[in-house]
């Protein structure tokens, strides 16, 4: 609160439009700044920023319950976490998701976006594929469906005895698929879960990439065509380098999402799957906090998760920079 009032007092005199006209404080201006900036910021500070900060402190206590007794134990929680085999499995699973989900999703959605945008005629005006509006509308569907429902629908599709997938597979002759539990078998649970998340997001990124590709001036494609570049060449040497920053953004978003993945994983396999093969950090954190009541330890997991998220984003930016991103993007 003190910070906000400070901002208002010191800031009210240098309003850009008013700089030329008037400098004195009026009630209108003071009340305006206090409400417009103060109200949202107070809510934001109390319910978003302060929990973040508190979590870091709690992570260094062995706070175990609903009393106010929080013995400070330094980094003991972190030591405990790194010696906890199950937590380390969850870290490994989360990292696996963060490695594979963005790659698969981005590549698949790029391919689909490319098909839509350069599948059109190679003569005349540069155009996308005819009738592609239909695909765009359909592909976007999964993005608007609540993640919980996506999980439930796919859980039923992959149901061993009466699911759609095993029904199809046995009908076309794969008898070994009969009663096979895709989400209940250690070998397939993770892959099946990843497929479901990809299914949920490809459409969104496809639309994003289509929009980005359409933002490239048509002259660029025309020039490439006159120079004799085919579609594949155009896609590889023109489209992808020019929408590089969009790809980076998509990659980071998808990675952050993969490191969370709580909803999908907890709906598909609420207890972490066969032999903890689909247990992710967010699930472990949730059960540590709200089932076991080990709040200090759970906060330490939160800090580890946040650290991995930041490292992931930094790595993506770094790789993009090192491989020559941002330079060749037309600005």
């Amino acid at each position, binding site marked *: 609160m003190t910070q906000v009032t400070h901002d208002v007092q010191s800031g009210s005199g240098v309003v850009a439009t008013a700089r030329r006209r008037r400098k004195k404080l009026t009630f209108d201006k003071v009340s305006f700044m206090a409400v417009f900036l103060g109200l949202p910021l107070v809510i934001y500070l109390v319910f978003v920023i302060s929990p973040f900060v508190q979590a870091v402190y709690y992570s260094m206590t062995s706070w175990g319950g609903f009393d106010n007794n929080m013995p400070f134990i330094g980094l003991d929680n972190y030591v405990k976490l790194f010696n906890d085999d199950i937590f380390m499995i969850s870290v490994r699973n989360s990292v696996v998701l963060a490695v594979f989900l963005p790659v698969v999703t981005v590549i698949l959605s790029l391919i689909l976006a490319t098909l839509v945008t350069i599948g059109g005629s190679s003569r*005349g005006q540069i155009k996308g594929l005819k009738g592609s509006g239909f695909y765009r509308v359909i592909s976007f569907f999964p993005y608007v469906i609540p993640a919980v429902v996506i999980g439930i629908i796919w859980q039923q599709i992959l149901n061993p005895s009466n699911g759609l997938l095993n029904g199809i597979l046995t009908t076309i002759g794969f008898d070994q698929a009969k009663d096979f539990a895709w989400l209940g078998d250690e070998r397939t649970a993770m892959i099946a879960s990843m497929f479901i998340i990809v299914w949920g997001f490809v459409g969104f990124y496809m639309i994003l990439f289509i929009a980005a590709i359409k933002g490239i001036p048509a002259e660029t494609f025309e020039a490439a065509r006159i120079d004799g570049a085919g579609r594949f060449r155009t896609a590889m040497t023109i489209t992808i380098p020019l929408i590089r920053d969009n790809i980076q953004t998509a990659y980071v978003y998808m990675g952050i999402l993969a490191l969370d993945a709580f909803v999908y994983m907890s709906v598909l396999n609420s207890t972490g799957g066969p032999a903890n093969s689909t247990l992710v950090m967010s699930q472990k954190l949730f059960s540590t906090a709200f089932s076991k009541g080990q709040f200090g330890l759970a906060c330490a997991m939160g800090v580890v998760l946040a650290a991995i998220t930041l490292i992931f984003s930094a790595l993506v930016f770094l790789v993009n920079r090192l491989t020559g991103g941002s330079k060749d993007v037309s600005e």
Partner: protein
Amino acid sequence: MSLKLSKAEPHGHVERKAQDSKGDKVVAGVSHTMLSLWALLVLIPLAWTLMSSFKTTSEIFASPFSLPEVWKFENYINAWETAGIGKSFFNTVIVVGFSLVIVMVLGAMCAYVLARYVFPGSKAIYTLLLAGLTFPIFLAIVPLFFILKNIGLLNTLPGLIIVYVAFALPFTVFFLFSFFKALPYEIGEAAQIDGAGEWRTFFQVMLPMAKPGLASVAIFNFLGLWNQYLIPVAINTNPKNYVLSQGIAAYAGQQGYAVDFGSLFAAAIIVVVPVMIMYILFQRQLQGSVSAGTMK
């Protein structure tokens, strides 16, 4: 959205009808095939869910393909009443409705001040908002639980609303920031010369001008809040106050014991229909705002 416009048919010249070459036809054919495959992969699960929502449990067990013998609309009544989907539907409407309005107003105000006024500390506020977008909610979830507990809003709908507002705020501000930034300064000055104060300038001049941006961000917020699961599951644990995503997850969790798969599918359809309607209605704005988001 301007991208859409630039793709419109050119006016000045008559387009020559070019003959598609053989290669073009092959490429178009391959493209259509692959895109159709993906469309099928999207549609089949949804269609199957819709079909199964009318079947009895024994029909579902008999064959995943068979059409329902009688179209069992009772599944929907069961889901709505016994499974408590109806109650959580109303809770969701209340929570999402209120938080959407509040976050749009607060977000627009905050974005407006940050975009159009220069004052010390504005950069710091911007960075602080960025932190809210970068850090995972999971880091905040435990302290958040106790903050709400201490102010007596744990397991209440107002508590859920205020948390939704707080966590949707940074995205809203970032999105609207660029919209307000782009509005011409002359208009604000004109309003001032005409005697409008800061408040009137915002509500009667600036806000109406930012309508396209508001519409896009509102739809994204609607989807995000309607689909939210983690926040309610942590801080709204009273079954009476369940929102839809919680309600259906709890119902699916019970399914292991009391099997009524038809109603489960019906519940899934009930949850999906409102967002589908919103999507179809606002499809243009939504796809437009995806493209706007890429033009940073």
